[in-house]
């Protein structure tokens, strides 16, 4: 983890300015920030180790995605799906994998291919519902 992140602990009761700035209402709240302090991903509550790690990788992937570094984002999303396919973060990773591939290639079929994997591997996920509209893409 320390290869990719600076770990920062903030005492909820002693740092009211940061609690307010990041609108934290409950602990633990984990937020992934870029070096400028901009938020890209958060989750609340204790998670088993595999789900925790998957969320952290998802956060890194979302930073890369939001900064238009799509190839790096794709690597993060693929890592989650390869190593933690049963994690709660996996369907979201699959969703963003399709979107990142589309952004990298400008090929809308990537969105449809992403939906097909979601339908097969995560049929009951909210992310499959969110991707449903891509079924209308021709081809």
């Amino acid at each position, binding site marked *: *983890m*320390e*290869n*990719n*992140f*600076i*770990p*920062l*602990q*903030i*005492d*909820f*009761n002693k740092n009211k300015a*940061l*609690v307010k700035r*990041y609108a*934290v209402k409950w*602990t*633990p*709240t*984990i*937020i*992934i*920030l*870029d*070096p*400028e*302090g901009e938020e890209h991903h958060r989750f609340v509550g204790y998670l088993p180790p595999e789900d925790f790690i998957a969320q*952290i990788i998802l*956060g*890194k992937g979302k*930073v890369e995605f939001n900064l238009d570094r799509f190839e790096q984002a794709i690597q993060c999303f693929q890592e989650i799906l390869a190593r933690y396919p049963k994690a709660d973060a996996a369907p979201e990773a699959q969703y963003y994998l399709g979107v990142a591939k589309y952004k990298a290639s400008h090929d809308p079929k990537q969105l449809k291919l992403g939906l097909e994997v979601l339908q097969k591997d995560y049929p009951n996920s909210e992310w499959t519902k969110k991707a449903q509209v891509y079924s209308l893409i021709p081809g």
Partner: protein
Amino acid sequence: MGKQIQWETSLTTAKANAKKGKKLILMDFYNNL
């Protein structure tokens, strides 16, 4: 044995170190009940 995590406690320091090391920041809000 896992390596002990060296937690920062200052966002300003964390941002400086993140920029220097080209890393991201994992910010954990905790509460000692």
